[in-house]
């Protein structure tokens, strides 16, 4: 496969679609599929045929607005229909070329206009199971350009220049990591894509893998060329069957097109990728634990150094990046590192995908430039808290992140700013809570999660999370004392500073941040035996001495 051949495929695919007057795009991500968008697509295709229209019906990936699914986008008029079902197919096809159907139309200009799509540029646009669709949207151009016109060092330079930082949550500079692996000596090197999206409430990686799998594979191939690796693994959760199926199909297609395998693009570069299924362990998102899991062992982390960049999978130099990090690579190579660095804030460049969920009107996936304020994401893009309830907190970073109150909403979203206020960027889950959520209970929920997910290797995490859970349960039951609060703070400090891996080091974050910003709720629970949100079952009021 050469660039010329790639152009031919792109040209032919575009010409094929140009034959049609209009296109109907039906979202077939997990969210919309659960509302039978597959049946909707079949019905639409049938109607197009019955009504004799020259229209193409396409299966696409996630369009972002999961709560309003199934979504249908009519091109080129850009009419978006929400909650479209099989029974609407006839009317939708009939309305083509005429007036759109008012009842179904989704008009959320504010939701979409504030977003900048880099990672999600093809999501909801291309058919994720057709490699030619991806090629028609500049797919694999970056890989072949890198192979023919750039040195491995040149690729790393572009990535470094872009200022891209690891999107899994740690925020380690990607260019620096690539440089370390490239310099490491070893006959074999590996590239691993971390798709073990364990954070409950986050689904960015699932969506990218389902909507645009080829982009991740291309990113991995470019990384492999840059660091000198010949084999790759994608580690995906077994809970994401659709993502796994689409990845498998994509790998097969890429091999068939000669974009994976031996001598890619008629160069000496050879690279192939295998899928490894996770088996439901949150700790496997930690890189050394993930490596242990690929090796077929219990997913327990190892002390670092040595870092995987030097001694990783089977003791060989290994590059591990998150799905979203790899998804950013192809556009960076195509448009240059400078272009990417032009977006975002001072030390956090580019865009970030967030999974906006919880008590918010427009739940779903959004991609925004770094540095945008939390308030803008929640109130403008997210449409605010529904049903007349009052905003209480937003939780970023999953069980490792913190809960931020209303007063913190004006900070710009970036790795450093979030860390400074006691939360983390994390992989991009953003859960909004309203006045029906009890913050003590939420803290207990997260600690319970970390307690069950702790692998048990190091004591601070194994025993510390269990003790924290016991203390928080005691407060939730109305038996807490003010001394318990001090004990909790002390224990959080120990767990945070002495745990082996990221799981333990960040597990106290939800507790510490709720203690910092919602201390009055803890005090309410302890002194007044009262849960203002009405979540915790307290002992009867009269037991409190007057």
């Amino acid at each position, binding site marked *: 496969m050469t660039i010329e051949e790639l152009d031919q495929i792109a040209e032919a695919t575009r010409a094929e679609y140009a034959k049609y007057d209009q296109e109907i795009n039906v979202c077939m991500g997990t969210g919309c599929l659960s509302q039978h968008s597959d049946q909707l697509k079949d019905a639409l295709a049938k109607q197009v045929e019955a009504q004799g229209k020259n229209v193409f019906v396409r299966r696409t990936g996630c369009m972002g607005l999961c709560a309003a699914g199934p979504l249908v986008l009519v091109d080129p008029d850009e009419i978006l229909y929400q909650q479209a079902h099989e029974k609407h197919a006839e009317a939708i096809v009939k309305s083509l070329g005429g007036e759109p159907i008012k009842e179904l139309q989704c008009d959320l200009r504010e939701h979409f206009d504030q977003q900048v799509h880099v990672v999600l540029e093809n999501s909801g646009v291309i058919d994720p199971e057709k490699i030619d669709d991806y090629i028609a949207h500049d797919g694999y151009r970056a890989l072949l350009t890198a192979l023919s016109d750039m040195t491995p060092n040149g690729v790393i330079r572009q990535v470094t220049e872009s200022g891209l930082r690891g999107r899994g949550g740690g925020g380690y500079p990607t260019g620096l990591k690539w440089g370390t692996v490239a310099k490491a000596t070893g006959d074999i090197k590996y590239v691993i894509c971390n798709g073990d999206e364990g954070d*409950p409430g986050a689904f960015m990686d699932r969506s990218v893998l389902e909507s645009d799998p080829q982009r991740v594979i291309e990113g991995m191939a470019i990384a492999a060329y840059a660091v000198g690796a010949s084999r790759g693994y994608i580690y995906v959760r077994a809970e994401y069957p659709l993502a796994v199926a689409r990845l498998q199909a994509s790998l097969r297609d890429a091999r068939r097109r000669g974009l994976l395998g031996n001598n890619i693009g008629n160069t000496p570069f050879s690279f192939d990728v295998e899928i490894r299924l996770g088996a439901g362990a949150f700790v496997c998102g930690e890189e050394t634990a993930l490596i242990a899991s690929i090796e*077929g062992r219990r*997913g327990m982390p190892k002390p670092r150094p040595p870092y995987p960049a030097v001694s990783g999978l089977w003791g060989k130099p290994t590059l591990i990046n998150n799905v979203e990090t790899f998804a950013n690579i192809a556009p960076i190579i195509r448009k240059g590192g400078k272009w990417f660095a032009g977006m975002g804030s001072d030390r956090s460049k580019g865009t970030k995908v967030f999974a906006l969920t919880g008590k918010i009107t427009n739940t779903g996936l959004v991609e925004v430039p770094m540095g945008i304020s939390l308030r803008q994401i929640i109130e403008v893009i997210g449409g605010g808290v529904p049903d007349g309830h009052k905003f209480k907190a937003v939780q970023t970073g999953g069980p490792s992140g913190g809960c931020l109150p209303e007063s913190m909403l004006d900070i710009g979203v970036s790795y450093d700013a979030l860390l400074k206020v006691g939360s983390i960027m994390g992989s991009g889950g953003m859960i909004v809570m309203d006045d029906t959520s009890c913050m003590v209970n939420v803290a207990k929920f997260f600690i319970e999660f970390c307690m069950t997910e702790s692998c048990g290797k190091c004591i601070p995490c194994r025993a510390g999370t269990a003790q924290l859970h016991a203390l928080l349960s005691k407060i939730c039951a109305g038996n807490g004392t003010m001394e318990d609060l001090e004990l909790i703070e002390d224990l959080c400090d120990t767990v945070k500073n002495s745990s082996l891996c990221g799981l333990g080091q960040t597990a106290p974050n939800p507790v510490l941040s709720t203690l910092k910003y919602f201390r009055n709720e803890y005090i309410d629970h302890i002194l007044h035996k009262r849960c203002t949100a009405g979540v915790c079952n307290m002992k009867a009021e009269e037991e409190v001495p007057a």
Partner: protein
Amino acid sequence: MPAFTPPPLPSDDKRWKIVNGTMRKNGFARHALIETLHTVQSSFGYLDDDAIRFVAQSLRVPLSQAYGVVTFYHYFSLKPPGKHTMTICTGTACYIKGTDKLLASAEKHLGISQGQTTQDGNISLAAARCVGACGRAPVVLTDGELVGQMTNEHMIEQLERWAVA
């Protein structure tokens, strides 16, 4: 050193051939342990002692290590599932929207707690850690099929339908 011969298949059950196929595809390498266990679970629905012993011997992995791996990962089950499975998502987004109440209600209705199966082997109740469909919270899986924006009435209705069938 004599060449290694894998142990014979535990029975004539055709599913063992699928399991063996996974191991052969990976050249009976030790690191194929988790892959193989996935195949066993998807073929048989759960992992029993015979299966773990067979896989461990075939891959030359100590039995203790194989058992350790099985118990470490939540996805693997040592008990046979019921005819139907109700899986309730307990991820954060679903929790905020009240799946803790759904879970409690299902436990009360079936008289079992999560991870258990009713005495007649009909319905299993499970809790999942986020299935990644948070936009549709609260989410449950009825026999693996994702249902979003679940209400208590709908869930109980489904459980009753299974109980009759």
